[in-house]
Each structure stands twice: as C-alpha cells, then as structure tokens.
C-alpha cells in the first residue's frame, strides 16, 4: 500500500514539473480496493485547470507501468488552497525561480474589495532582492501572478494565494 501511494505521489504536475502532485497538494488520497483496483483522488487547483486531464492520464499510465489498474476520481471539497503546497514543494519552486505562495490570510464574513493589490512580502527568487513590483495578478497559468524585480530586472512568477 505504501509503495502504491509513493508511486502515485511521484507523478509530477504537467505545468510545474519540478513539483509532484503530492508537493502541489492536489493528491488527496490513494486506496486499493479488494480486487486490486487503485483509486486515486485528486482535486483541481482552479475550476478551469486544464491540467486535470493530463494529471489523470499520467497517474493511470504510471500505475499501469507497474502492473496496477487505476481509476482517478475528483474531489471538489474542500477546495484546494495554496496552503496545501508542501514545504518541499515551496523549496523546489524557489529553486526553479518561481516565488512560492504566502499563507492565505484568514477570512470571515463578506470578502472586501481590494482596490489596491494586497502587498505581498516577497523577494526575487533569482537575486533575493525585495525590490519587487506586481505586473499582473494573472500569469501564464491560472495559479500564477507576474512580478518584476527592480534590481536584477528579471520578471518572475509567483504562485497566488487562494
């Protein structure tokens, strides 16, 4: 059982291949039924995440390579949070030049409108400078914002808090 879980957990995210599905926090559970069928449950990061189909196929293929039959199920609740990215995942993101998400601020009651971007206490993953400027809350994938560094002048991606 532990080997089966480790196998599923080793599948990487198609958009951020430095992370496994476990690092990203989308792998919710792995179980084996009496007849040997492996049931893997994953959850989408965003409602429209186009990587879900690829994740499902990669899981089925990886397990099939080891002689295991698998089905992948979707779990919608609780909704994925960037807080679920593991410490190892955060380290790997930083090593690959992607800024890891900060803790999601606790919230109660109606969501207030933020007319200015909420300041994030970030440093440039390339040069370590804290002179960073938000370029856009929307980036190359649903889960990333774009920043620029005023010191090394490179742009970098930041995984958004949700």
């Amino acid at each position, binding site marked *: 059982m532990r080997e089966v879980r480790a196998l599923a957990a080793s599948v990487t995210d198609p958009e951020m291949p430095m992370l496994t599905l476990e690092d990203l926090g989308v792998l919710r559970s792995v179980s084996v039924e009496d007849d040997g069928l492996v049931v893997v449950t994953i959850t989408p990061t965003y409602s429209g995440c186009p990587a879900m189909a690829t994740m499902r196929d990669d899981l089925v293929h990886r397990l099939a390579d080891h002689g295991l039959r698998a089905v992948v199920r979707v779990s*919608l609740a609780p909704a994925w949070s960037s807080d679920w990215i593991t410490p190892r995942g955060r380290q790997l993101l930083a090593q690959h030049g992607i800024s890891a998400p900060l803790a999601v601020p606790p919230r109660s009651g109606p969501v207030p409108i933020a007319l200015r971007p909420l300041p994030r206490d970030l440093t440039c993953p390339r040069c370590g400078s804290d002179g960073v400027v938000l370029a856009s809350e*929307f980036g190359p994938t649903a889960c990333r914002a774009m920043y620029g560094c005023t010191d090394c002048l490179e742009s970098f991606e930041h995984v958004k808090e949700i």
Partner: protein
Amino acid sequence: MTPADDFHDSAYDGLLDHHTVADDSQWAFGTEFEDPLAGVDTTVPAGEDPHALAAYCLMIGDDALVNAHRLSEWCSRAPDLEEDIALANIALDLLGQARLLLARAATASPDVVPPLPPGSPVPPEDALAFFRDDAAFRNVRLVEGDNGDFAVTIVRLLLFSTWRLALLERLQSSRDQVLAAVAAKGVKEVTYHRDYAARWFLTLSRGTEESRSRVLAGLDAVWRFHDELFVPTRIEASLADSGVGVDPATVAEEVAGLLDEVFSVSGVDRPDLPQVGAVAGGRGRDGRHTEAFSHLLAEMQSVARAHPSGRW
C-alpha cells in the same frame, strides 16, 4: 478493421492504430473524455425537485459560460499583453465553473441534455453548451452584449463579478454538496476577478479625460441590465426556500454597497438609467435573450453543431 476505424483516411492513419498505441489520451479529440464530476457524489438532496435543481445549475452555469465566451473574444486583442492574459485567465476560471455546473445539471436531471446521434462522444456538459437553442439558455442578459471597448468590458466585469461573488458566497452553504463545492472554489476565483475589474474601473475613471469618458459610456451601455440581476425567478425563490439556491434579491443591498464603494473612490455617480424590461413576460432566466446573444451562440456553437459525432 471495423468501418469505424476506417473513418480517418490520411497519412497519419498509423498514428491512430489502436492495436499499436496503448490509448489515445494524447489526442485532443481522444475518445475518452474526462468526467469533471468523476467520483463526486451527485445525489440530489432529499426532498428536492431534480428538474428545479438542474434549471438552477443551468442559470448560474450559463451566466459563467456566456461571460467566459465574451471574455475569450479578447484573446490577442486586449490593450496589452498583461490584460490579454488576465482576461483569458478570468474566462478560463468562468469556463471551469460553467463546465462543473452544466455537468451538475446533467447529473441532476439527464433530460435537460439535448439528444445527440447514437455513439456521439460529446459529453453532457458540452451537449448543453453547444446543442441548446437560445431559448433554452438561462443566463441573465447582462453577459450577452458585444464586448465594446476595454472600458465597457471592465464595467460589465465589475457588475458581474460583484454580483456573482455575493451569490457564490451564500451558495457555499447550499444543501447540494456539488453546488456548495463549486461555490467555495468559485469564491476564491471571482474575488480576483472583482478586484481586477474594480482596480481598472478606478484607474480608468481617475485617468485621462478620454479614459473617464469611456468608463461613463461603458456604464451607459451596461447599466440597463443591472436590475434584472436581482429579480428572482420562481425556481430561484423556491430553491432558496429549501436551502439549495440563493434568491438574488437578497444580495441586492450588499452589491449596491460594494459598487458604491468603487464609484465613490472613482468619483463616479451611481447611474440612474432606464432598465430593460421583461419580453413577453420573461427575462434572460426565462430564455428571453437579446439579438447579440443569437450571434454569440451562432459562433460559439457552429463547429460542434457541424460535427455532432465528434468527427471531421
């Protein structure tokens, strides 16, 4: 080879040989479509009318679908690259919400799904998006009109996302667990959409004379669809009573307060403009739509309708 295998007669036939390739999931038109609700418990809540639940899912699903389509029309045409990507991201979030909600409608009451030729690989949520006629769509009319310029799109997105976020926040406690889950995820997404629209509204309003005049023109174009957002249909009222849906009239005050906050910092007066009325006794939720919507559907549905069996 069966006749079905023989359908594709091109130089790439070998690539499609099912005897040599383990499966075809690498193809965009792979035959195994992913079920977005695979493994999700789609039991209809006790005592609930499945038809009413399906109709409600179509309402908030169609709002997202149609707005997603309009926003996607900005692709490659936005004022700059960042906005192009932002609008595409917002469209993708809404399309994802629509897909789940249309799939939920189909599981609640399969008879809402238009019939397709036997053997068609089109999944239920796609059949709902691409094979319904305009009168079967339940979206509000706010989302139907042409994009106009960037300011018109921003004004509409501000109004839409403020309203939708207020609805989704309440829907998180729906007795239907699929609706509750879609809403909980949607709240996180639409929060980003609303902030984006509110910041641009403020920036354009406090920008140049030109940008400000465009915002005011945007309000003129969009505001007449405001009141309709808060008119409950019989279905919404009844599902709100049973703890499954939200009566949109109950979010009017909160939405007004939030919009006033944005208007106030932007130095813009809350519009007082004539509103579109009912047509033949109905509004968008009842399947009464604008002319622009027919054009939108014609474009959105043409490819799928030309190939109902998923073959070309």
